[in-house]
């Protein structure tokens, strides 16, 4: 059980990392070298990555927010996000 948790991919830290891993997965699947178990695991990981990348795109694709540095600094100093 512990071994399988170590093997599990911790997930990408950025959009570009997610896309890079996704390309690796597609290349691996296209190669036909992956066994059935690996194929199923790669497909599951690939679906998670597609969802992650789509969420990252959505995060900067909805509404433009504009802040002023002075205001931001004041808010941070006051402890409000």
């Amino acid at each position, binding site marked *: 059980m512990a071994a399988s948790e170590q093997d599990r991919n911790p997930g990408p830290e*950025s*959009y*570009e990392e997610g*896309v890079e891993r*996704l*390309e690796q*997965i*597609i290349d691996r*699947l*296209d190669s*036909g070298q*992956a066994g*059935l178990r690996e*194929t199923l695991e790669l*497909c599951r990981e*690939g*679906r998670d990555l*597609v969802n992650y*990348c*789509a969420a*990252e*795109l959505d*995060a*900067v*694709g*909805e*509404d*433009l*927010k*504009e*802040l*002023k*540095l002075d205001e*931001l*600094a004041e808010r*941070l100093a006051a402890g409000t996000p």
Partner: protein
Amino acid sequence: MGQALAPDRVTLPGPFAVGRYARKLEEEMRRRARVSLIGEVTGLSRSKAQAYFELRDAEGAIPCAIWLSDLEKLALPEIGLRDGAEVVIGGGPDYYRGGAQASPAFYFRATQIRLAGEGDLIARLEALRKQLRAEGLFELQRRLARPRLPKRIGVVTAESGAARRDLLAGLERRGWRGTIVWAFAPVQDRHAAPAIAGAIQGLAAQPEVEAIVVTRGGGSLADLWAFCDETLCRTVAMLRVPVISAIGHERDSTLIDDVVAVACSTPTHAAEAAVPLDLRAARDELARRAVALRRAAAGAVATRTPHLVALARGPARALRRERLDLNRKTREIRAAAERGVAERRGFQRRLVAVVLERARRRAAGPDLERRREALRRAAVALRAHEPEHTLERGYALVEGEDGEPLTSAAATRAADRVSLRFADGSVRARPEPGT
């Protein structure tokens, strides 16, 4: 012509020897006050000993010369003294009277030259650029990783200006609608440098600012001079957040362009550098990858289906194979058993034949005669012991009423009747009591 010369003959001193006059002229020229002149360099050429050029402006020109030994002492930047450069020269008029083989000439003999106006700024900029490059400050920002999809961007620019509008338009074209943190600052002339440096540092201190854009519109080098400030450029070079510059127009080159991660020619380009990913294209690409993933997954299953089906059919097939194998073995065993019985029967038949043969041989061989003779002798011996032969010699056999021989006197006395058997017949008798 003759009429024109006529008055000179009367009123002018001389005639003087021209060489003497030339020397006097030379002395006169060299006595004139030393001044500095400003103008543009044209027709620059060099001999073995001197550099020659004309210093010119819209109203006129002066031929100039400087000894190369003096020029080298000035340590001008390489691009400094060139055609088109605006320079300030120090010196005075000079006249070379020529010689037997050399032509006379008039020059403004320069002993000092410095670049003027933007030329002066450019020279100072070049010196500073050389120094910062030597210190390795041009490489630091370029080595920083730039996120392709930052969520928060800091921008240093003038609050009102085309640069701000152009940057927003560029980000909108990318489809990017994250968070912009504005740090407005004066961006005009060299006095703005500390405020710009402070704004950049303030943005870099915000934990979620992933890239900083510094931008302003075009202007003269003097207008943009704040972005050549040594302190500002050293500050930017040392930041750990990538800085993207778009200062002035394409032809303008400020020192900050050398130390930033990416130098762009326009605010629009800066928007593209700050958000390298085109979100619309990225969405399409992600959709294609999702399709590719599904296709790869489906393909992986499809290619394995025949194998899976074969695996599913495997037990029945294996069972059938085992059954066939078992049947074959059963047939083999039966056949082997039948072969064994036949062999045993053959063996028994062979054994009986051997026994019979031996019996036949025994029956037919010399042993039979020998045994017949022995038998005959035994019969003679046996007959010699028969009672009848004894009776023939005069003996009688006493038998009881039951025919059993009485072999003692007591047994005979005890019997009521006896039979005396002779060779020719029996005589019944009664023993006398008390005898």
